[in-house]
């Protein structure tokens, strides 16, 4: 349900990233942003895409696509340390069976890739 605030944060981060690479003032335009979203991050992909379309207007990302790479929930067994996926019906270590685990993946809310179109002379 907090997809709009996430979308706004992404826009701010991308703008800051572009600004730092174009001498302070963001230049050019962004064509695509790729994010990695964990399945435990509490983000509904469709809601985030919708929020993105609203929030990007008038920013450097106006018109930019948002590509979402969904990351599985991954747990680490507390007995042997091996990792295994957690599905909706649960999961267990392949070596030790049901045992305590800690969640090591699946909460990501990360920007991973930005496709930026810019005049050639900008360094």
């Amino acid at each position, binding site marked *: *349900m907090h997809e709009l605030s996430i979308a706004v*944060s992404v826009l701010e981060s991308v703008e800051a990233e572009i600004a730092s690479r174009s001498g302070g003032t963001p230049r050019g335009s962004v064509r695509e942003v790729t994010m990695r979203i964990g399945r435990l991050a509490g983000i509904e992909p469709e809601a985030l895409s919708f929020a993105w379309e609203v929030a990007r207007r008038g920013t450097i990302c106006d018109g930019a696509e948002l590509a979402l790479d969904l990351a599985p929930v991954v747990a680490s067994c507390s007995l042997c340390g091996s990792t295994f996926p957690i599905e909706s019906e649960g999961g267990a270590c392949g070596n030790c069976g049901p045992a305590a685990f800690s969640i090591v993946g699946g909460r990501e*809310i*990360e*920007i991973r890739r930005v496709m930026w*179109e*810019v005049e050639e002379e900008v360094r």
Partner: protein
Amino acid sequence: MSEVRILEITRNVVARNDELAQTLRTRFGEARLAVFNLLSAPGSGKTTLLERTLRELHGRVRCLVIEGDLRTARDAQRIAAAGGRAVQIVTHGTCHLESRMIQGAIEGIDLRELDAIIIENVGNLVCPSSFDLGESARVVLASVTEGEDKPAKYPFMFEKASAIVLNKIDLLPHLSFDRKEFWDGVDCVNRSATRVELSCATGEGFDGWISWFMAKVSAARGNETAPASKR
């Protein structure tokens, strides 16, 4: 001529929240404050737990309650009626609290006049767990009417809790709630949290909650620096 550049980066989108939360944690530590982030589904009894806690600690602990609510100031009114000092954050539909909201809520409040802050998060078992608020302890409240499968369904919420409180145990005779399954689910993700079973209605088990709470308050009073590790 223009060119397309591909920027391969990794930027955590909630990093700014985490940074501000860390700043708040340092401030709270310097003021020797215990700060509790109280999380639960809607209807688990967060406000009732606070009302009873404030009554029990009246005159012993100077508490400020920060109330997160979607639409109304009703909970803050209940806290005030119980003799507590409350600040209301109406989130206007946002499903969780963020550290900048906490920063705004404590503006103008002299932290040295307090012993504890209790943040009542928005009732939701998903979103609030992603947002650090600078708390020294995270408390997850569940009630027996919600079913025993909550820890298995929402492991992320239970994983980082310092205390897990199971409420409404006075209703157990009327339900088929499986306590063992509930705590087994907790075992899978969190073996270090303090566990309390209680009823806010009858007061059964409430002593266990109060003694855990007071231990946290005492620990904060004794520490000059921020208890940053006690997340």
